[in-house]
């Protein structure tokens, strides 16, 4: 029962991804080229009625057509088109024509005439629309041909007067995609243009349809205009008025498109002057547009509201006083007329305004005011963000928050003003919005200094139960400037409260205090005696060094002390001792201090350990030194390798920036060393039975090299094709070694033959994969093998093994070139800590959830690659694949895994420890060859483009330290 239950648990919570082995599409030679069109022709002739014909066409459309036969097919289709009476069949043919003209390598100019011809004779509106769509495709395929373009545009203009909206839509689209600014159209071919007289350009034709009766056509017209803009044709300023009128359209899609249009124009002509209706004043166009778009933030449709709110964020040229109105709900119209109406504004202020609703009866009627001066709603911009931020839909709120952030980043004064609103958003009911506003506040925090009351509100969020929110807030506090020492104290208190309430936030809180201290040394200084509870006369008891709160205080003080030399004078003796301790144990949080006490200069030697450049130099030199080893059997080579490996490892520890590179080199060299050791032995010349032991070590070495190469390939990011080739090269060597050992130990020819064949395949695939890299592999093992390839593939296994052995022993060390940046994927399990002595008790057969919190660095695609392994003391192990939503991305190249794994086991008598670790799964089919491009390909794409994976090796690399968890499955009571 228990086992069954457990099985079910794993079934439900772990996901096994099986990559289906798709068969590579068999590529047959198509000898019967014309047959495709011929078959179609026959089919179409056979079709007795339109339904049949339609079926044939649908069937036909499923298969691709080769470039050569496209034209033939098109002819047949057209021929059939003229004969066909049924609309749906003609429609399908028209759409097929469009599809076919998209075929790569086919130039559709030969069918332009036919298409236009069919267009002229067509009666059905739907088919017309489809034909125009086809023309659009043809037009976009032929960007270089102005005559075709001109003809198509004329065609479109002609059909603009169609009564069916679809046709007008397509015509507008065509005009938008193909129309040119510089060629005025001579429109005398139909009534519409003629009545308005002679030469008109494309924009005025399109803008005529801004007033179309059908909203879909209006939308299409605006979209066409936007398309023109995208094609870098400058839109006329006259359009602005028309676009503004469309902002009050009845239909949301029109309004939404109009918002975009107005925005485009405001970016094109920001400094133009437009008049304010019903007054004789004028303002900048961008300001006017800003006002109008702000207006749309209180639109009836939330789609439009989102659009408007987003758009506002990118209107950076707007004048500051307009910008500030967006945060004010009060009467704003007079601001616009400020230049002329100062006195009136003053009068207005004293005579009577709306009340704020905060105090009772402050709206008691006063003397009647001159209503002429108060113009409430039309002054669009006012309060746009206030509205946006308290919108019903969180999508709008998020858009508004983002827009605020963009605007605030470009204007310090606005940043100051929007602070209160952002802080208010911390209380939003949707967590996403809260999180977003915290992030935004962090982004603009360079502009602002928090006042005490604002800080108070900000810090109140520290008690939020959501970890994401708290961590975002810590991040925010890291970047915040505060104004007074009280603020520091307040922040410290709240952070300690937070620490007390949520002990898991420890690291995050410490980090936060580190930045707080180093940013505000002068504000911390007066607080030091209080913080360290020192007393001028009395000795105070020494605080507990393991108290996280005390450590937090020390972190704050030490970081402040770094740039405040007078501070250490205030420390008591034990503080210095604690400093030394923390400097060692939490060196990333505690900076080196120049401490005067005891004549001891506590400045750490480590901080002077030199710059990255020198370390880089050292690394390069070590590699160069290694490259002097020409022959694997050279004396002293092993020692040199050994020392270099040791040096590199140490370098990696010291210089975190180069840790990846150093580690990578060290591992690579270790592979070389292993190989060298395995080959160097004299015993190769002995008879097999005599050196059994030797064989064992060599086999182990080969195995280890293989493992290491997988690590090299998949654990490090930033590898270039060249390094991957090198790695594959050494893997090939290891495989050769394995082959030789098999040949020596095992008797029987059959297994040997098959493994020989496999090896040959490996060589081939290596050659195929790294053709570009082969020149760099001169004189290497592979190079030599490839020379001998003809001989190898024909000779007998035994002979082949001999050749291999010889080549292997003769081949030199392949020099490693370092790429720009190498990072090693690392993972740290933060939780469980493995310190707990209390076993996790649960009833057998049931499950217990174990919270896992880990940070991953430099892991590409962690959603697919990272797995959790649970190892039970009886050797059982389970691999759990976390849900994609368990991964968060707090920063570039950093991921955070917060998940739960479910444990279950049969009853134990004693509590015992299980091990939890993270695994990095790899499969050599999705090889990191040309890593950046290949990994970005979609699932289905990569299957198609990569060669079918032969002998894909799948495996996992443990890349975190295992953590022990004490568990105790109790037997179930009955």
């Amino acid at each position, binding site marked *: 029962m228990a086992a069954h239950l457990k099985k079910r648990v794993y079934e439900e919570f772990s996901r096994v991804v099986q990559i289906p082995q798709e068969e590579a599409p068999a590529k047959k030679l198509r000898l019967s080229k014309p047959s495709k069109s011929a078959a179609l022709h026959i089919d179409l002739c056979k079709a007795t009625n339109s339904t049949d014909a339609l079926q044939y066409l649908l069937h036909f459309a499923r298969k691709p057509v080769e470039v050569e036969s496209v034209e033939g097919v098109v002819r047949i289709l057209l021929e059939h088109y003229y004969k066909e009476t049924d609309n749906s069949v003609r429609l399908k043919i028209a759409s097929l024509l469009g599809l076919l003209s998209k075929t790569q390598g086919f130039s559709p100019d030969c069918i332009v005439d036919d298409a236009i011809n069919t267009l002229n004779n067509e009666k059905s509106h739907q088919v017309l629309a489809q034909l125009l769509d086809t023309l659009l495709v043809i037009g976009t395929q032929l960007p270089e041909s102005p005559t075709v373009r001109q003809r198509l545009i004329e065609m479109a203009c002609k059909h603009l007067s169609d009564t069916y909206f679809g046709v007008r839509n397509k015509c507008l689209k065509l005009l938008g995609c193909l129309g040119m600014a510089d060629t005025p159209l001579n429109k005398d071919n139909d009534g519409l243009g003629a009545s308005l007289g002679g030469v008109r350009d494309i924009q005025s034709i399109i803008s005529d349809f801004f007033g179309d009766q059908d909203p879909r056509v209006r939308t299409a017209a605006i979209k066409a205009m936007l398309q023109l803009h995208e094609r870098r044709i400058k839109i006329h300023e006259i359009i602005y008025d028309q676009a503004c009128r469309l902002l009050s359209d009845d239909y949301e899609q029109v309004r939404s498109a109009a918002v975009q249009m107005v925005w485009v124009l405001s970016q094109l002509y920001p400094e133009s002057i437009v008049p304010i209706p019903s007054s004789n004043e004028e303002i900048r166009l961008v300001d006017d547009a800003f006002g109008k778009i702000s207006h749309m933030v209180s639109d009836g449709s939330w789609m439009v509201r989102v659009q408007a709110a987003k758009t506002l964020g990118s209107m950076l040229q707007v004048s500051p006083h307009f910008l500030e109105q967006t945060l004010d709900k009060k009467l704003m119209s007079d601001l616009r007329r400020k230049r002329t109406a100062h006195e009136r504004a003053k009068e207005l202020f004293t005579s009577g305004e709306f009340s704020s609703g905060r105090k009772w009866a402050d709206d008691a009627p006063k003397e009647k005011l001159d209503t002429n001066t108060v113009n409430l*709603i039309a002054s669009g911009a006012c309060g746009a963000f206030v509205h946006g931020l308290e919108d019903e839909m969180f999508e709008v709120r998020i858009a508004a928050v983002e827009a605020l952030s963009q605007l605030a980043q470009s204007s310090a004064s606005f940043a100051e003003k929007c602070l209160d609103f952002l802080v208010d958003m911390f209380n939003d009911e949707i967590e996403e919005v809260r999180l977003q506003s915290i992030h935004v506040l962090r982004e603009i925090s360079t502009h602002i200094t928090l006042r005490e009351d604002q800080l108070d509100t900000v810090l109140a969020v520290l008690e939020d139960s959501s970890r994401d929110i708290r961590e975002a807030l810590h991040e925010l506090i890291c970047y915040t400037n505060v104004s007074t020492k009280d603020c520091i104290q307040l922040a410290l208190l709240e952070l300690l409260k937070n620490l007390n309430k949520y002990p898991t936030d420890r690291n995050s809180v410490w980090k936060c205090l580190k930045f707080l201290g180093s940013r505000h040394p002068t504000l911390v200084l007066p607080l030091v005696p209080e913080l360290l509870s020192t007393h001028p006369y009395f000795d105070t008891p020494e605080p507990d060094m393991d108290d996280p709160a005390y450590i937090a205080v020390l972190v704050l003080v030490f970081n402040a002390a770094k740039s405040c030399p007078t501070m250490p004078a205030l420390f008591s003796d034990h503080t210095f001792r604690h400093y030394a301790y923390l400097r060692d144990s939490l060196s990333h949080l505690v900076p080196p201090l120049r401490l005067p006490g005891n004549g001891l200069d506590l400045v750490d030697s480590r901080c002077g350990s030199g710059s990255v450049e020198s370390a880089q130099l050292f690394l390069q030199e070590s590699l160069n030194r290694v490259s002097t080893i020409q022959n694997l059997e050279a004396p002293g080579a092993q020692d040199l390798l050994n020392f270099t490996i040791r040096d590199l490892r140490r370098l990696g520890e010291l210089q975190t920036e180069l840790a990846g590179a150093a580690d990578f080199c060290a591992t690579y060299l270790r592979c070389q060393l292993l190989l060298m050791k395995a080959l160097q032995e004299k015993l190769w010349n002995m008879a097999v039975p005599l050196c059994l032991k030797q064989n064992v070590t060599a086999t182990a070495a080969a195995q280890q090299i293989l493992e290491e190469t997988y690590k090299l390939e998949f654990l490090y990011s930033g590898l270039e094709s060249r390094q991957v080739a090198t790695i594959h090269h050494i893997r090939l060597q290891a495989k050769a070694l394995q082959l030789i050992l098999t040949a020596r130990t095992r008797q029987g020819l059959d297994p040997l033959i098959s493994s020989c064949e496999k090896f040959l395949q490996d060589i081939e695939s290596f050659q195929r994969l790294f053709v570009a890299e082969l020149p760099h592999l001169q004189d290497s093992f592979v190079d030599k093998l490839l020379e001998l390839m003809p001989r190898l593939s024909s000779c007998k296994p035994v002979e082949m093994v001999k050749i291999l052995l010889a080549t292997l022993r003769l081949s030199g060390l392949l020099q490693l070139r370092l790429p720009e940046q190498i990072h090693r994927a690392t993972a740290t399990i933060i939780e469980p800590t493995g310190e707990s002595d209390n076993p996790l008790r649960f009833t057998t057969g049931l499950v217990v959830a174990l919270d896992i919190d880990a940070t991953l660095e430099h892991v590409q695609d962690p959603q697919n690659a990272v797995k959790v392994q649970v190892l039970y003391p009886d050797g059982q192990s389970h691999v759990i694949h976390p849900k994609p939503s368990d991964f968060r991305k707090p920063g570039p190249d950093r991921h955070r895994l917060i998940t739960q794994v479910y444990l279950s086991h049969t009853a134990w008598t004693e509590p015992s420890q299980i091990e939890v670790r993270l695994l990095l799964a790899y499969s050599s089919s999705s090889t990191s060859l040309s890593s950046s491009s290949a990994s970005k390909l979609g699932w289905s794409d990569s299957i198609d483009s990569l060669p079918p994976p032969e002998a894909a090796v799948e495996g996992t690399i443990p890349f975190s330290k295992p953590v022990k968890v004490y568990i105790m499955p109790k037997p179930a009571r009955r």
Partner: protein
Amino acid sequence: MPEIKVTPLGAGQDVGRSCILVSIGGKNIMLDCGMHMGYNDDRRFPDFSYITQNGRLTEFLDCVIISHFHLDHCGALPFMSEMVGYDGPIYMTHPTKAICPILLEDFRKITVDKKGETNFFTSQMIKDCMKKVVPLNLHQTVQVDDELEIKAYYAGHVLGAAMVQIKVGSESVVYTGDYNMTPDRHLGAAWIDKCRPDILISESTYATTIRDSKRCRERDFLKKVHESIERGGKVLIPVFALGRAQELCILLETFWERMNLKAPIYFSTGLTEKANHYYKLFITWTNQKIRKTFVQRNMFEFKHIKAFDRSYADNPGPMVVFATPGMLHAGQSLQIFKKWAGNEKNMVIMPGYCVQGTIGHKILNGQRKLEMEGRSTLDVKLQVEYMSFSAHADAKGIMQLIRMAEPRNMLLVHGEAVKMEFLKGKIEQEFSIDCHMPANGETATVTTNPSVPVDISLNLLKREMALGGPLPDPKRPRTMHGTLIMKENSLKLVSSEQALKELGLNEHQLRFTCRVQLQDPHSDPDTLNRIYTHLKSVLKGYTIQHLPDGTVMVESIVIKVSSSAEDTSTKVLLLSWSYQDEDLGSFLSTLLKKGLPSGLC
């Protein structure tokens, strides 16, 4: 011209007992039927004798629509339907229908059982009344009869509050009831499409207020409560059982959860639990957040809020109590208020509007000594705070709604006269539409200009299309020839031939003839010939025939020549044309009057 008449029986320049009569297109509709909080006598209910002096209301009203369940909008409903007498349909939304009887029952209990009034409606009457209710869904068009249709829109304010569009033919009225344009913790914002009604009847409780952002208010509220609790004081929040109470509960509940506070929160019991149940049920009527999260946890299942018992009021230590009613005019909230008023540590937060005459109104206006029944006085020492949490639209919200609906006329109700005056001025200036604000019993009349739909025959339309330009331009009116037939209440525009056929009439030809004297010395046939050539040169593109019988035909116009009896050089031309060729005929006559050019042979 057709007219729409609006007469408020209650809520005209006043808050309370909303009851508005609308006559539109021959239909009479009653919008809301509420009671007044401030009175305990006959003024409590609307004056139904305005409709009819004696007898039942059924024959005078086509339907009654209730916008939401607040008593000032539905309190008089059983009185009207059962005691005065009305049997027609009563429309309200589903949540309103569910919650309304609970409140009515509560109201009845207080008035009858506590105050001992007689001649009041009974429980049975409430039940009978609710049987007449027809439930409405949002955006569902309900056909009351053949001509009258109503449609409900979401109004925010309280659960189930609706704005109603009433439509007869092309005339329409929108009644907002109470509405809220800013969403809150549990409800969304009011929304209406661009329905362009003839009249928009809007509440105007906060006609002169533009409120601070919602979040500011929430923060202030939480801060005040939190501070008071930390001081060890007790906080009284008088609320009406439903509506704001739920919003504040959610607010405090989440705050308590986030801040991990321990002080108890109580909610005076009774109808609340039943009503809370409905809040849990009608999730579709709540805001985005609750709708999205109710699967995990229904926000109305409170963890920290417990039922209140009267004895708890004397418990030591801090606590927060929500008590009804909201204006401190009676009931539990007043009792607790009396108990706590003497301690300056305590606090009362008035979250909404208070009607004049209630204790709430008095203390908000700063009165520190209250006269209670029995000539005793009460010293008010506790802090009095006001937080505008009423979910009514503020001035800006009202303006926003007007912009959304684009009405042709505006009518303000449910507000104080002076404030309305202010808003009226704004509306008239801003939107340049008429704005009315009738007092109770006063009728506002709006003449409408309804468009009259006319069926046009397809043939005629096609013929016009063929004649005119390629596309009909919706922006420009166009003239066309046709015959309008009015038959059995329907209007039809057909071509004249068809009209003749349908009506069985003969076509009458109308011909104009005119004589033109012409000085021409030639003989008659020669003159005719000259005229023929002349016309030929002038009128190109017309068919001109010289017929053998001595006439010239230009299209259908006949020209004959005869010499006058006295003077042979004076020729008399006889022109005759039909009515259809009026243009050409008059052109020809003026042309010929000028005489023939001399150069003709």
